[in-house]
């Protein structure tokens, strides 16, 4: 059994971090997309990672459904999984690329970068 400190925190086991935004560097060269994307060749997309467990913090902007699911998970973890840590706000990026007709096109693609994460 892991020992507890006076604050009740456990040692000896890696605790799971709360739902938050983490780095995700995307390199279009690695994806093999640099044959049609002119720019950018890489960008920071971020990703969401961590647990959504009880009690949910307000900055995670949980949906009502997520609040209920988290409550049920806290009461009976084997019956109900916790709610999901997912992007709650995304922003666009500009991409300059070559289309199938060899024309150069500029496009603003929606939902490419995670701005914030939340419990859903």
């Amino acid at each position, binding site marked *: 059994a892991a020992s507890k400190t006076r604050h009740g925190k456990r040692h000896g086991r890696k605790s799971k971090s709360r739902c938050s935004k983490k780095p995700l560097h995307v390199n279009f060269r690695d*994806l*093999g*997309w*640099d*044959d*049609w994307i*002119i*720019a*950018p060749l890489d960008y920071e997309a971020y990703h969401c990672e961590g647990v959504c467990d009880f009690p949910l913090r307000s900055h995670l902007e949980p949906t009502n459904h997520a609040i209920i699911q988290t409550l049920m998970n806290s009461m009976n973890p084997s019956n109900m999984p916790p709610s999901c840590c997912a992007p709650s706000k995304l*922003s*666009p*990026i*500009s991409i*300059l690329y*070559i*289309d*199938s*007709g*060899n*024309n*150069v*096109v*500029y*496009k*603003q*693609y*929606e*939902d490419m970068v995670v701005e914030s994460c939340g419990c859903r």
Partner: protein
Amino acid sequence: FQTLVIFPPAAPKSSKAAKMFNSQEASKYFKEFYARPSQDRYNKAAPKDLIEPHDYMLSIYKTFSTAEKLGLNASFFRSSKAANTIASFVDSGQDDLPLSPLRRQQYLFDVSTLSEKAEVLGAELRIYTKASGNFRISETEPVDIQLLSCHDQQLLDSKTLDLQGSHRPRWEVLDVWEIFKERQHLSQGKHFCLELRAMLDNPERELDLHLLGLHRHGRPQQKKAILVVFTRSKKKQTLFSERREGRALLGLEKSPKERGPGTKASRRRRT
């Protein structure tokens, strides 16, 4: 993608098979599925290195991506007619013999990859002019360049060139939005054609376009005329949808009607 890549329908789900389809192979499969078809199947797209983007397109990208980073995109996009896509089409027209006078010039643009679903918010023709030094000195009158419809010779736009004031080569921009919208509405083929002439007032006569440096002979890719079309997608599109639409428009992906009854079963199986 992961479901599709890691467990393709034909792959047995035994642990041995799963191990064989490792992350390296998944990456290879992914690249082949999304990156190569455009070149191998079409046999049309040239490698990126052979396509030189016009400075104008690079400048659009730099301006808007910088604005995005500064959180200014809303105001910037108002100035570009609220477009979220700006496509450039390079002129594929040809001049007659290089030494014969060039009274009129037809510009041809293959716009077949432009989605019919997109709302066209603007269209302009950008041409590179470089008036010869002798001509500038001899002509004191302003020169009018006029843009006409190839179809019915209707005057679309005109512009007066100030040859005395400008000694440098420059890009002239002519508005072709109205005719482009009309053309889209009528679904007129895959080519868009415009005709250009230059006029002197007194006496009224058509100029040889060589004098304005408009001949195509020896013109580098970056100085060729371009048609710039500003559009806004009516629905949110994924990164791959334009590529797929491009295939369909090029006849490489058939519509459900064209596919015929023979492939319906295979579609059902895929579903």
